[in-house]
């Protein structure tokens, strides 16, 4: 098992390096460079070129990459062209917001997925199952952004149960109870919207795991032992079906990343996704780069986490 995990971690390192190279090259291809954000637009071309040379902007790409990467390792994500401040400062609060939004989404996703998946799998081909699969069916075919808009329209504007934008009501004392409550309130609608769509794949996965496990031969062995149906379910079917779901966990992060971009835009939620879109529109590419890099690393680590969980829970990998 340890070998498996170490090998898996070793795969992660080139992935992260490759991701950073890819992003760096993309940044090079982006119109404008660090200079355009730094200097007065009225400076002459010659002066600019001299400055470029001085700042090392004319160096070959791999040298520039080395410099950029060593900065990254020290936590230096570069400067924002537009806001004239370190990207890391710009990102910090946004990242915290997105983190809470993602966490809330994940929790709601599982709160929905596990009971629905279990019911649907256990009572497959009943009316209950049909209604649950009906939901997953429609959920699969509904783009998140449309669903988000509808949720905002219904619960934000029509019923006015939730705030329609922002992450907290302005003017509240950070750390106070009202502040936390307001944060949660702002979080809830986007998180529920995302979770309701995101959860359908988990529900379906769990359902098909259960239906598959039900048909496995060792279930017959368990019945032949004289185990009651409920015991067969709890001891054999459920246990065996839930383990792969646990391993699914890390991959959810990948799905979340795509989702936050849409949800944060729709609900005006000041997180990383919104920052990303804003920065793209402002052509503030060092911020764009940093956001994509962070999300990319999160996804890579999520996949790593999934595989590690799998290797821990499945004895076929654990004992080798």
């Amino acid at each position, binding site marked *: 098992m340890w070998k498996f995990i170490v090998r898996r971690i070793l795969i992660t390192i080139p992935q992260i390096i490759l991701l950073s190279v890819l992003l760096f090259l993309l940044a090079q291809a982006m119109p404008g460079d660090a200079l355009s954000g730094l200097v007065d637009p009225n400076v002459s071309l010659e002066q600019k070129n001299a400055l470029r040379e001085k700042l090392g902007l004319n160096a070959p790409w791999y040298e520039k990459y080395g410099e950029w990467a060593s900065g990254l390792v020290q936590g230096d994500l570069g400067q924002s062209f537009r806001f004239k401040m370190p990207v890391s400062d710009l990102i910090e609060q946004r990242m915290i917001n997105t983190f809470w939004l993602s966490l809330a989404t994940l929790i709601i996703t599982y709160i929905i997925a596990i009971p629905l998946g279990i019911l649907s799998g256990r009572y497959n081909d009943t009316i209950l199952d049909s209604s649950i699969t009906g939901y997953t069916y429609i959920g699969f075919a509904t783009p998140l952004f449309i669903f988000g808009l509808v949720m905002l329209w219904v619960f934000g504007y029509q019923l006015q149960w939730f705030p329609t934008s922002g992450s907290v009501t302005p003017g509240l004392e950070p750390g106070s109870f009202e502040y936390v409550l307001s944060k949660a309130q702002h979080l809830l609608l986007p998180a529920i919207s995302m979770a309701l769509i995101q959860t359908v794949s988990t529900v379906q996965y769990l359902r098909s795991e259960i239906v598959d496990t039900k048909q496995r031969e060792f279930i017959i*062995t368990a019945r*032949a032992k*004289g185990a*009651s149906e409920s015991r067969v379910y709890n001891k054999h079917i459920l246990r065996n079906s839930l383990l792969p779901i646990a391993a699914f966990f890390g991959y959810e992060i990948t799905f979340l990343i795509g989702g936050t971009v849409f949800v944060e835009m729709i609900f005006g939620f000041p997180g990383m996704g919104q920052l990303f879109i804003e920065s793209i529109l402002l052509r503030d590419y060092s911020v764009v780069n940093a956001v994509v890099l962070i999300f990319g690393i999160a996804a890579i680590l999520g996949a790593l986490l999934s595989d590690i969980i799998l290797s821990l829970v499945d004895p076929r990998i654990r004992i080798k």
Partner: protein
Amino acid sequence: MRNKLLEINNLKTSFRIGDNYYAAVDDVSLTVNNNEILGIVGESGSGKSALAFSIMGLHTRAKIEGNIFYKGQDIANISPAKLNKLRGDDLAMIFQDPLTALNPLMRIGDQIAETLILHKPEMSQKQRKERVLELIDLVRIPRPEHVYEQFPHELSGGMRQRVVIAIAIANRPDLLIADEPTTALDVTIQAQILDLIRELKNDLDSGVILITHDLGVVAEMADRVAVMYAGQIVEIAEVHTLFENPLHPYTKSLLNSVPTEGQEKLHVIQGVVPSLQKLPRKGCRFAARIPWVDASAHEEYPELHEVEPGHFVRCTCYSHFYFPDESKEAYAHGNS
């Protein structure tokens, strides 16, 4: 002293295909005594496994008609709770494929212990573990303590089959059903597993139903043999009788198609086993495979005839059967 353990009367197990039910086991009656091995032979599609599953009540979507009396109690028609009291305790089963018959995510020890938890709840945890270790040792798996903690994928096929057997015999069952227990195994392992089953039968004084397609296995193991074809028993007899004086055309053909000493040409049975849907429900089911035998030789509704004590043959065609090639004709019974 042999007592009647199991008595099956007119069992019919049907599966639904499309809108109709088709009987895979059709009007089967048999008995099993304790300390006796009843061999059931047949090719694929004969219904032998469906019969085993019917006895254990393991079919989830089949229609079962008829009676299965276990020690006088009709287990085809009892509540699931009562059946669960018997399964794993009085009745136990050994499955064909040891690779899939064990839960891949559960330790060997826990899988064996489960049967004890279910039927001997009064056992303490310590007693239970001791018993499991004893069982692992009983089925001759080396290093019981070690194997107790292992998972199925760490064991070879033969070892896994021993675990399956250990599960089956954990509560000293009176009736053991072995469904092709050695088909997935190598021949040297097969010999060991068969010897083990025989010894366990003697020790526990149980009745065993041994289902197989291998005539050699039956010849070595069974006390009595039932030959199944297309869902029915076509011949049932004491083992020596069956091999020395087979009567039903199917039994004879089957025996002739196995290579034996000095045989030049193997016998080939014409045609193929009909599918469940296409099976003729009237007349002799084997008639189509022996077209040279006159149609009048068959019964309209073939029944089992007791030709000598304990020897039953279905359909009257047996007395008119001969092999079409000259050389075999001499052996055929009642040449006409």
